[in-house]
């Protein structure tokens, strides 16, 4: 009997956001995340102090997963950022930093939380409407016939992952590979609802990054001695290779846990009988002119031998994860019964050959119609390889999102500062009826809008990790980085060369001013313009869908946290 213990009453904390502890932990979290942000982000080493795996990273997903936040308010924040990451896998740090700054800035205004929430919701809708409108000055449309914008997108993602330790040439090489792999998964003949194919990553650690390659079709790893060399595969008269895919074990064992008992008379061997049945299957396969047999589980050695003698290549233990791409690629149906199967389950392949890299041997299945490809990803060490894999996954997801919505946002902090100047401009010219609809005064609105813009700008400032200055121009509202100590120079156009995203340069006088300085007078902001030159190469671009969603999540989460009136902590 268990010991009965009286339940302890809960701890009640009212107005949690006024407590210092929340502010302290929030600013610690913000500091950690801020230092990870961007191409120059500082790396974090995560370890458990007990000899476990050490991870060197600046990824938000890894950092947020490993940080054990103690305060329940921060748990809400990290949980919603993690949700965002699991959905779009990009812009996690942007979301988290923006959310933290929003909470701090809104808290400092010290209005009634529901007023702040209503206003910030309105500001958010201004932002999203602007981003989705044609007039938006900080987005570019992605042209799939010209690969340059796709390269820019992927390159920006790889550059923002400093833990991959990639050089410039390596980044260029990987960018090409990733875009190529992605394009291989796009179906050629698009019907009503197109489904993207799959790219399988083959890990090769300890090799140079430039050795990475992409193959159309699948690479199945096999032990070296198993295949005859040179590989001779039986073909049908129409010169295709027939493939049979089994998802049932072909090892000849009789283990079936949920069934009743079987009594066997002395002298009868069920194993032999099973093996006979397997060989019957083998005979049927040979008769059906099968060239390749792939089994998810184990194939009995005798059957393998029999198949080999009949020039049928057998690959076993491919695992569950390979089954779906295999059946998608070959058009075969995985067979689950060795007693009854029909030829309609077989699929076909164009070619089969062997490849070997770095002590690993593969059978390379080449399909007629590529929708599945394999990306052999190499990096020097285990940790950097893991980072590279995550970077690849992010890039893949971003490309998938982009094909749905062919837009991209200017990166390098330019979108943030541009949006901030747009909101500043907009909030001055709002009609009185909209204040009435939100139930607030104009002053209240402008104070909240200012806090909102400062939060956006602070995200742009987080890109800068050395003590330099950040300028913004009045014409386009872009973001410019300047080395420190020069802010007193009279001619600023000598200092700045290119803006954060790389679309503007210093040829015209753009009337710069210092971002986030206490002393700068509030400039009467005109609506920021769209850059006239549309140079599309070597821009820093961000995924449109991911950034919009990040903005939304950050504002909604900040609202959620501002709305907290009490915390009830269960002490049991």
């Amino acid at each position: 009997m268990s010991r009965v213990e009286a339940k302890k009453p809960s701890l009640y904390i009212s107005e949690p956001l006024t407590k210092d502890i929340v502010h302290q932990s929030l600013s610690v979290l913000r500091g950690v995340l801020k230092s990870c942000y961007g191409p120059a982000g500082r790396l974090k080493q995560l370890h458990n102090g007990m000899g476990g795996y050490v991870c060197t990273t600046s990824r938000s997903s890894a950092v947020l997963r490993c940080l054990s936040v103690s305060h329940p308010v921060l748990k809400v924040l990290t949980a919603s950022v993690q949700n965002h990451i699991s959905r779009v896998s990009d812009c996690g740090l942007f979301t988290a930093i923006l959310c933290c700054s929003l909470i701090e800035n809104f808290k400092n205004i010290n209005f009634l939380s529901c007023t702040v929430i209503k206003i910030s919701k309105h500001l958010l809708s201004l932002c999203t409407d602007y981003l989705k409108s044609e007039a938006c000055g900080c987005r570019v449309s992605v042209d799939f016939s010209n690969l340059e914008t796709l390269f820019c997108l992927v390159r920006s993602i790889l550059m923002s992952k400093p833990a991959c330790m990639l050089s410039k040439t390596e980044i260029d090489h990987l960018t090409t590979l990733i875009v190529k792999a992605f394009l291989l998964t796009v179906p050629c003949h698009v019907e009503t609802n197109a489904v993207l194919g799959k790219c399988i990553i083959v890990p090769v650690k300890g090799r140079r990054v430039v050795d990475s390659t992409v193959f159309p079709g699948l690479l199945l790893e096999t032990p070296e001695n198993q295949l005859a060399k040179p590989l001779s595969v039986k073909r049908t008269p129409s010169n295709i290779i027939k493939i049979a895919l089994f998802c049932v074990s072909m090892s000849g064992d009789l283990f079936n846990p949920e069934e009743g008992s079987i009594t066997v008379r002395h002298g009868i061997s069920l194993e032999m009988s099973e093996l006979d049945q397997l060989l019957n299957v083998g005979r049927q396969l040979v008769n059906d002119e099968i060239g390749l047999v792939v089994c998810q589980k184990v194939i009995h050695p005798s059957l393998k031998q029999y198949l080999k003698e009949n020039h049928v290549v057998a690959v076993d233990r491919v695992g569950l994860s390979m089954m779906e791409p295999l059946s998608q690629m070959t058009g075969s149906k995985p067979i689950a019964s060795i007693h009854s199967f029909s030829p309609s389950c077989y699929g076909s392949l164009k070619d089969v050959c062997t490849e070997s890299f770095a002590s690993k041997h593969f059978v390379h299945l080449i399909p007629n119609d590529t929708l599945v490809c394999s990306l052999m990803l190499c990096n020097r060490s285990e940790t950097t390889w893991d980072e590279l894999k995550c970077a690849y996954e992010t890039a893949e997801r971003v490309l998938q999102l982009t094909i749905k919505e062919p837009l991209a946002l200017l990166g390098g902090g330019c979108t943030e500062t541009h949006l901030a100047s747009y909101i500043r401009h907009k909030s001055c010219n709002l009609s009185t009826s909209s204040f009435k609809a939100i139930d607030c005064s104009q002053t209240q609105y402008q104070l909240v809008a200012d806090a909102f813009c400062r939060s956006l700008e602070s995200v742009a400032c987080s890109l800068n990790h050395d003590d330099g200055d950040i300028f913004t121009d009045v014409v386009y509202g872009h973001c410019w980085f300047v080395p420190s100590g020069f802010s007193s120079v009279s001619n600023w156009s000598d200092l700045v060369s290119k803006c954060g995203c790389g679309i503007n340069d210093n040829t015209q006088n753009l009337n710069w001013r210092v971002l986030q300085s206490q002393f700068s007078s509030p400039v009467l902001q005109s609506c920021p313009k769209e850059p006239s030159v549309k140079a599309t190469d070597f821009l820093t671009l961000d995924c449109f869908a991911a950034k919009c969603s990040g903005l939304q999540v950050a504002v909604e989460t900040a609202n959620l946290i501002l709305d907290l009136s009490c915390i009830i902590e269960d002490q049991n």
Partner: protein
Amino acid sequence: MAAAPLELGRLAQEAAALAGAVRGCLGPRGGRALLALPTGAALLTRDGRRLLEALSLEPPTARMMVASACRHRGATGDGAKTFVVLLAAVLRGLRAALAGAGRRRRAARALRALEAPVLARAAAALRRHAAAAGGGAALEALLEAYLGGRAGPAERRPLARLCREYCERCAPCAAARAAALRLAGEHFAELHAAVAGPPLAASRVLAGLLLRRDFAAYCPARGEVAAVLVTQLLHAGLAAPGVELRVESEGQFQACRRWVARRTENVVRRLQSNNVRLLLSSVKQHEVVIYFAKLYGISVVECLSSEEIALLRKITGISPFTPSCDDVRREIAEITVATFCQPLLLGSQRYVHLGFTSTCAFQPHCLILCGPAHSVNEQHAAAFQGAFKMLEQLFKTVEQTEECEAEGESQNETSDICGWHSSTAQKQLPIENISCNGNQGSEHQLKTVRGEAETQVVESDLQRSENPACVQTDLQMSSSPVSPIKELSALPVRDSSSRDVHKLHPKWKHPDEVHKSCRSDLVVDNQKNSSTAVLAADNANTVVSEHLDVDKDTEKINRNIVLFKHGKSYTNSEQNYSNLIIEAGSVLPVGGNFEILLHYYIRHYAKQCQESIVADISNVIADALLSIPKTLYRTAEGNSFNKFYLKAIDALRKNEPLPMNQKGLESVYCKYQLVISVVNCITELLSIDLIIGVKRPLQKIEDNDSEDDF
């Protein structure tokens, strides 16, 4: 054993502490509470019941208060926080007004005697300010006010719109809305999918059902798809568990194996020959079944939960298919048709999306709730479930009052034409009489508050049925020969099935006359059997209202209901409902109107009380009522409560309509019920004189105090 006398001061303190805990979350300007669970999870909520339960208090009297508040919330779907605030204010007032144990007991007695002379009369007087709710706009206003206390400030309006859309699409026919909402509330866990990440604006209502898993086998099919339910394994092994198979030879063994595989294939083939294209299984099927299903073009969804199976059965009305090898040729009877069947990706979770045309009142729709974090979605889902509960109660009556208003004028002319000469009708008569008398009795002696409220509904029904357009089916129903009293009280809604028995009766009699003729005999009887009266009334109520609605729909009487018709409802109620306390489905605008009105009228009637202690306590309650609007207005700028209060009282004195500045509505019935619940709770608390701590666990005598039997 430790015994401590119960002090009023202590009670007041405890209640004040509780009120302090929930006050921050009360009303449209309130915030959320974050519950940090012992598991480490963080839960967001504004639900009063959740908050109070999460406090896990120690003092027994405080626990009693929490229990009463939660009981009230369970019954009406609303008002746990307001309950606590009001309770604290009343106890504070009582402490100031009373001193000494003797007076306390007398106060408890006085509280019991308070209801009929003061509270009921005050509520009856309040009626002329209330309006009837009907139509989509009023529904949204009600929902907005309700969700205003349960969601964030920016989320209220979109959620209310979403909830209205959901209600209207699930139950397009307003008559069946109560039943549909009950089902939606029961199965809400299966009827909504929460997606963490996208903004709230991405939430939507989706036709059909969502099953929270991927297809085990998916064969795309266009158009309608025949489906079966399966709750057992379709593939049987060589020997069933506990059965022994004797193997005599290798050939025999292989033959057995082949036979087993063939048998499974035959089952699947039989499904295919019956054109079944979708298999919904509650168990995980053997991979051989999946293989054959793919081969024969049948999609499979497995591992459905028992709740999902129950919901599917309710909607489709089919029972699970049982395979047997003998009847391969026979047709499968239990087949339903899904209008579509496709995979759906929400966030990173895959769903199976099925469309069904329902065989019951509920048209299957599901709700996709989006929010930045899971805890928000959970909060919204809980709020929706509460809203269904609130509406479920209100819906029965909303439709009725709608008609009351429209048909009020025509009553007097039509009433003489009606006569009632039906022999079968006589059997049914007692039900109505009991219920009507229950109402009459309650005027004088309030025994059960609930009985009273429910019976009023019936009364209003019957009165409305005087409209000739409605009277036929209405009375036919109640006079249908197949429904004697006992059956009615046992099976609430089933009787409506008997309505196909349509007989035309040549003449109708004004129902009121019938009541009058029978009333004298049954008054005594009624008091004994008040509980059966309540049951019968309840049944009659649901059935009658359904009838009315069917009628209304078929005749397409278009009634645009204006939300507030003060003058009209005033005259109506004076003429027709002089014996009612609260009209069914009546609503008031939110924001403290109800409290101020009740405060005003309680004070008014308290002056007429003979007993001084009753008058005192009435005044205490009247003043305590003001604490609710005070709390609601606390965060607004300036002295807005005082301004609002003075304006309202001024308007009342001059007999003008109240100033209104908010759009939301709330149900008068729920609000009045809240006051009664608080009074009952205080009576209970004051009747205790000693608290005794015991060492061993107390045995619970019975456990049927669930929220459903309220």
